[in-house]
């Protein structure tokens, strides 16, 4: 794996690096927010399931950071833990808090929000991973094929919750509708490649932004049709674009917690 750089132009390597940071940071933040539900999920089976999904997603983040390490960008742990918020390339949605409060104190987390965020994010991940299976960068193809198999179970899980809550009581439906609105406000950068759009698309690392959006919509349309609700519109322009390092305050607090232990002594083996 050490000679992946052979025969790669500098421009191509830069494009791969840019995309890998977007993919890796998305997974890291999503996994972190998902892991905050540990012990707080609605019931014990869900606790097991959500933490399993969080663990898988962290595994996917590790894999993408490892591909960056293989490109000589830095060590995978340093890349995950030590980069400041303004260098992060995750989508805004993945960094958002789960609700009011801190999980160590008295959290008032919003389960409807977690279900909608997870369902929409997982379907977006599916659109990307499907396309990555045809990427021009072979290590990404291999990673995507592996991730896709695990993703199958995640999609099944969140789709079930999404359908059930939206077929439930009026209170549940209302909370879900509010959550859908909240999630969609932050969905403007989900399929954006930011400033690296041209480089990523021209090098055929992943299909075009518009194709990803179409694939996402098509994948959720049957579920929405059954529930008799409209597929929400993806905002044309994001209010903040995480792919360009623009973030909310929520990211800083996430990173502070996530990397607290690692920062104490980056050289230690955990």
């Amino acid at each position, binding site marked *: 794996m050490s000679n992946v750089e052979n025969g790669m132009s500098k421009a191509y390597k830069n494009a791969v690096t840019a995309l890998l940071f977007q993919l890796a940071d998305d997974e890291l933040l999503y996994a972190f927010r998902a892991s905050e539900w540990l012990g707080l999920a609605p019931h014990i089976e869900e606790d097991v399931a959500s933490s399993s999904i969080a663990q898988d997603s962290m595994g996917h983040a590790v894999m993408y950071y490892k591909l960056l390490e293989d490109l000589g960008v830095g060590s995978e742990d340093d890349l995950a833990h030590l980069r400041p918020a303004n260098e992060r390339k995750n989508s805004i949605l993945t960094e958002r808090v789960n609700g009011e409060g801190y999980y160590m104190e008295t959290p008032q987390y919003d389960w409807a929000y977690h279900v909608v965020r997870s369902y929409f994010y997982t379907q977006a991940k599916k659109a990307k991973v499907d396309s990555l299976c045809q990427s021009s960068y072979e290590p990404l193809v*291999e990673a995507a094929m592996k991730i*896709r198999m695990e993703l*199958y179970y995640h999609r099944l899980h969140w789709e079930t919750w999404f359908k059930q809550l939206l077929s439930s009581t009026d209170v549940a439906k209302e909370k879900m509708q509010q959550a859908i609105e909240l999630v969609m406000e932050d969905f403007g950068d989900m399929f954006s490649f930011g400033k690296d759009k041209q480089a990523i698309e021209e090098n055929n690392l992943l299909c075009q932004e518009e194709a990803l959006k179409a694939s996402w919509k098509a994948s959720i349309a049957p579920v929405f049709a059954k529930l008799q609700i409209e597929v929400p519109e993806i905002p044309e322009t994001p209010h903040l674009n995480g792919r360009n390092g623009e973030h909310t305050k929520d990211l800083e607090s996430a990173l502070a917690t996530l990397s607290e232990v690692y920062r104490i002594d980056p050289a230690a083996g955990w």
Partner: protein
Amino acid sequence: MVMAAKEVTTERVYEVLMTVMDPEIDSVSIVDLGMVESVTVEGNDVKVVLLPTFLGCPALEFIENNTRDAVQSLPEVNKVEVEVVFSPPWTSDRITEQGHVNLRKFGIAPPPRHFEEDGSWHVDCAYCGSTYVSMENIFGPTACRSILYCKSCKNVFEAMKPVSTLM
């Protein structure tokens, strides 16, 4: 006393790898789980290539270390290299027949080899073989397992999730 260096054979390496168990299911070896992609011997140096079952699997590092230690324990072996690769991806049909037998011994139903048309799957009870079971939680105590309930013998049991490239 000078010992003549004995030749290392791949058969011997596989034999010793049969003693390396999954730390979370200690009745099943990594060979029967289908995690060993290849063993190459060059002189007295050995290289073992492993495929992880699930990417976030925390047992992977233990397995890597145990693999290295096991092969190194062969007196004829000089250098050991253990590499983890993701391609070809591990799929549940890599588990051997012996692996299926040993999973049942542990109370885990082996992964079904077939999917229904809608992508769902069915296993029989790991204890009594009854087909009258219900899925309690598709996510079990580890990434690769699900939790089911047998309505015949009234036991909770686990099943190894089927994983396929067709998903």
